[in-house]
């Protein structure tokens, strides 16, 4: 007990150190658990959404013309042996109303657990998220459903929606499928894995950031704990000499660490909640916009990640303290109480670091040459970052040695030598800074490259001024007649689905028109590509299909009605599915049933708005049936900006944590460096000059780290663009560099370093001369 008190008194005398330790730990935990909270919330939302739209995972029967299915048709289908369950969907008082028949709905298609049929059928029960405002006369039954979706018995839905017919029939996946009347078609289930894959890579992104931030935070914890242990070596020795066993001492220290970890972990998890709550609305908007995945914008309390947050805090603390604990455990009883140069790296450990760093870099190259797939991509990222971090102190040591050799005069020589002397103590913080800066450069480059490519691609792809979706083919035919004299061209955009190389692929028919010949975003093509397509002698494949299946120009793909060679490849960002383009004639010949509803309209741009209005008025079309390309572009870009707003926020936070790591290290060093500074002061340098040199050194190291971070960040961006993106999304983006952003970042990093240095440096500048003198008096 006395031993514990003796050990704890250290923290009372070093409150700043304690604060740094707790701050580092809680920040690391906060970023980690914040990201986890966002991920957990988003995943829970997907699950709810997937359940609500569970019917999407089952095949459906719909009318070919899109009209509601009469009840009589439903009865005929059932009596013919179709195990089909009716669904009526519509919008009612702001809710997306899904009317189901719980009697016939297959288990896999159930959006909610309806409980007893008798409590649902013939009642006015509405299943919806807790707190949903339901119209008068209906009874809310809280259910685990996404906001805005209400599930009722089909009878209620039909009544509320004014006697609507059946929207579609959900098919039992296990039941037989007899012959189908001509008016109906089977709509194959939407494969949920598309969204899952897209959102997964988004979450992977976030998780990687969370881990990075946590690692950076642990650097702080490591340095603070290491310092506290070194400073207490005298106390340890005394306690051991007084009879405290090594086991008891380690136990007490372990208990102390656990207590700190719990405090830091609690604070960190609470802060993580704050981070998540602040970022979640953006994440929700991003996922909704990008992938159509509905995520509630508010955070629910999930005990799971409180536990996970605490766990990672404790584990992180133990990892960070492991080395120090081991030293206490093995410390000889009679070891001198003189503090060793803290964490001084010997030449041997530097060589060891260099060797490992080089090995990791070589692994990166090997992975880059030979590896494929998402795993190889992330393994590459990890080895690149780790290798670079390990090499940084080596490079800085070499640089300072080189500079020292070139330096003229005593003071510069001392400056470089002293800088090198300080490197081991600062190297962890500098590594953290390197990683944070490289992540900034890398992710920034990726985002900016993506944005540039994406906007250019949108311009090419959305070449028609207006896009029209008719409600049925008869209407489409009337509209096309009406449009003929009013437009320059009416281009069919008809689409059919077909299995292609084991995946569901989209087949589009395109007209032979300059709109495509001039604008289509082709990546690679054989000569005369459009003539071949128009003549029905070739297909265009999107990049996703082309890269995933490892195809080459001239390879054939098999479509209904015969195989065709690939004559061109185009970029198709944002689409998870394989896609091919053939001529409209070919499409109609190969897919006679293809719905003929969508058209691109070419008009003089200034007439587009009026034509859209006329179209809607003449044919009584809903607003979204006629869309102009400008608003599609604006929407796409808005979604895009949101996507990366979260990334940017995490970037800034990571940089902030790296800055804190610097601060912690500098603070640690400043206390220990007096024996080195005092002689220089004694030889005539003023405290102000010394402080100035210290400040300059910090900025120099930050600048050097920034310089090292540049190629590393670009490497990171290249891996993200050329490896990870291809594996995750199926497209490869050209890399663009933005030196202006680097300057901005360099400024930021210098600012962070300056802020980290300001307190230690001020302390040095104002240090009482007696403190410096005492160094000579004290033989510690």
């Amino acid at each position, binding site marked *: 007990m006395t031993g514990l008190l003796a050990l704890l008194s250290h923290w009372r005398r070093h409150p700043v150190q304690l604060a740094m330790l707790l701050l580092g730990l809680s920040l690391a935990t906060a970023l980690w658990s914040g990201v986890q909270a966002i991920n957990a919330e988003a995943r829970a939302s997907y699950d709810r959404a997937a359940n609500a739209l569970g019917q999407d995972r089952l095949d459906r029967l719909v009318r070919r013309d899109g009209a509601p299915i009469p*009840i*009589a048709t*439903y*009865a*005929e289908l*059932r*009596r*013919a*042996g179709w*195990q089909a369950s009716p669904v009526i969907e519509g919008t009612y008082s702001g809710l997306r109303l899904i009317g189901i*028949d719980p*009697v*016939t709905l297959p288990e896999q298609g159930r959006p909610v657990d309806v*409980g*007893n*049929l*008798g*409590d*649902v*059928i*013939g009642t006015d029960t509405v299943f919806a998220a807790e707190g949903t405002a339901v119209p008068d006369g209906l009874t809310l039954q809280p259910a685990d459903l996404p906001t805005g979706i209400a599930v009722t*018995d*089909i*009878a209620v839905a*039909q*009544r509320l929606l004014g006697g609507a017919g059946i929207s579609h029939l959900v098919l039992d996946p*296990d039941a037989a499928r007899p012959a189908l009347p001509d008016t109906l078609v089977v709509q194959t289930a939407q494969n949920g894995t598309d969204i899952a894959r897209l959102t997964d890579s988004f979450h992977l992104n976030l998780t990687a950031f969370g881990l990075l931030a946590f690692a950076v935070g642990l650097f702080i914890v490591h340095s603070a704990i290491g310092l506290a242990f070194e400073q207490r070596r005298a106390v340890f020795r005394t306690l051991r000499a007084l009879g405290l066993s090594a086991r008891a001492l380690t136990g007490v220290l372990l208990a102390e660490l656990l207590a700190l970890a719990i405090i830091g972990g609690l604070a960190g998890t609470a802060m993580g909640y704050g981070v998540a709550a602040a970022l979640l609305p953006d994440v929700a908007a991003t996922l909704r916009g990008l992938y159509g995945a509905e995520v509630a914008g508010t955070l629910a309390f999930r005990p799971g990640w409180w536990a996970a947050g605490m766990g990672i805090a404790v584990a992180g603390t133990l990892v960070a303290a492991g080395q120090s604990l081991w030293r206490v455990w093995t410390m000889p009883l009679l070891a001198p109480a003189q503090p060793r140069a803290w964490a001084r790296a010997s030449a041997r450990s530097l060589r060891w670091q260099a060797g490992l760093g080089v090995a990791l870099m070589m692994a990166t190259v090997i992975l880059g040459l030979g590896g494929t797939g998402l795993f190889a991509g992330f393994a590459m990222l990890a080895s690149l970052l780790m290798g670079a971090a390990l090499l940084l102190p080596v490079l800085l040591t070499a640089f300072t040695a080189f500079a020292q050799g070139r330096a003229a005069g005593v003071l510069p020589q001392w400056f470089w030598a002293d800088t090198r002397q300080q490197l081991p103590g600062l190297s962890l913080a500098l590594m953290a800074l390197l990683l944070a800066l490289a992540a900034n450069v890398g992710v920034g480059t990726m985002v900016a490259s993506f944005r540039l490519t994406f906007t250019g691609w949108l311009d090419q792809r959305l070449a028609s001024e207006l896009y029209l979706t008719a409600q049925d083919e008869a209407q489409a035919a009337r509209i096309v007649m009406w449009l003929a004299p009013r437009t320059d061209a009416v281009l069919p955009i008809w689409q059919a689905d077909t299995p292609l190389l084991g995946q569901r692929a989209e087949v589009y028919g395109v007209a032979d028109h300059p709109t495509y010949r001039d604008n289509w975003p082709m990546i690679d093509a054989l000569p005369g590509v459009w003539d071949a397509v128009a003549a029905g002698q070739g297909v265009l494949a999107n990049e996703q299909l082309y890269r995933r299946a490892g195809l080459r120009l001239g390879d054939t793909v098999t479509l209904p009605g015969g195989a065709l060679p690939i004559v061109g490849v185009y970029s198709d960002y944002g689409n998870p599915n394989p896609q091919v383009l053939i001529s409209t004639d070919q499409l109609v010949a190969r897919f006679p049933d293809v719905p003929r509803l969508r058209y691109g309209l070419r008009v003089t741009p200034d007439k587009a708005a009026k034509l859209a209005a006329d179209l809607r008025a003449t044919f009584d079309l809903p607003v979204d049936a006629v869309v102009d390309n400008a608003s599609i572009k604006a929407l796409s870009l808005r979604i895009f900006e949101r996507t990366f707003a979260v990334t940017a926020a995490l970037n800034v936070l990571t940089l902030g944590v790296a800055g804190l790591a610097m601060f912690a290290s500098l603070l640690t060093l400043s206390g220990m460096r007096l024996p080195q500074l005092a002689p220089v002061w004694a030889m005539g340098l003023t405290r102000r000059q010394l402080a100035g040199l210290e400040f300059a050194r910090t900025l120099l190291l930050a600048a050097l780290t920034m310089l090292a971070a540049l190629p590393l960040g670009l490497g990171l961006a290249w891996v993200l663009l050329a490896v990870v993106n291809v594996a995750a999304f199926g497209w490869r983006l050209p890399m663009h560099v933005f030196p202006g952003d680097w300057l901005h970042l360099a400024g930021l990093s210098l600012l962070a370093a300056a802020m980290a240095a300001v307190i230690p440096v001020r302390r040095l500048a104002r240090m009482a001369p007696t403190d410096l003198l005492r160094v000579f008096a004290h033989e510690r």
Partner: protein
Amino acid sequence: MNAKALLIALLCATPALPQGFAGLGEATAGFALPEPGRHFDFPADHGAHPEYRIEWWYLTATLTGPDGSDYGAQWTLFRTALAPGGGTGWSDPNLWMGHAAVTSADSHRFAQRLGRGGVGQAGVTAQPFAAWIDDWHMISRASPGADALSALDLQAAGPDFAYALALDATGPLVAQGDNGYSVKSASGQASHYYSQPFYAVTGQITLDGRNIPVTGQAWLDREWSSQPLAPDQTGWDWFSLMFDDGARMMGFRLRDAGAGYTSATWIDADGTATPMPPGALTVTPLDTTPVAGRDIPTEWRVQLPGKALDVTVTALNPQAYMQTLVPYWEGPIHITGSHTGRGYLEMTGY
């Protein structure tokens, strides 16, 4: 076969779907109650009686294949009204449940269908007579002037079985109990109940894609009521016996904490029905079989002293268990002793 009401009652005792399906635990307010003295009105009474809460069309057939193998077939359509009163389209308060099974000495295959009334997925029409749920049906092909149930086509299919049977009555309809008023318990619960126990059957069953021509006999029960059964009644044992001499017997025992309640109707070969007084029938389990984790009596001694009946009935397949929403045992039996023949046994609540 009033005991079938217990099946429905059981439905309401199990959680989730069945409870709602039956809804029998609730008050019967608003539904019509069976009354003594009501006379059957055919063909209207062959159809549905939505003013009553529960109703069924229950057919069991004992069949024989070309190699002498015995089979049994079941076709059942239950109707349950969740609420009294009408309602059209999706608002129709009736739910329908179909059960079908084919039993052989070494296999028992069954299937279940659920549907709601009002939209044509399932239902019963009296004229022309048709009972159906999905692609299962029982349709009259009786000649004009004849009773609609005198000739039926029957069809059902599950994932691993199917059957198509033609039924022709060789005797009249039989009113059970007191002119069709069948009392079910000492406290007076009852149903309207009549049977057609005299079908000759020809047709075909399909097992695992193999078609087997069959012939045999069948028994149809028609019953409707609104009354929940007494809460202390835990299950029942129901027997339909078709003797080689042309006579028939319907008998059941409702089990409770005490001695239970038994009832029987003796039907002569010419269709003359004699209701036996409550308690005249005694049924005694002789042997049990472990089925689905419980012991179920699959050999019985059945005695009706007033008719000099003392027989042993033995299950063709002791594993004839219906793992449906509410599980129960239903399968063909052989009769030996004072009389010989074949029949069907149904047991619930074990």
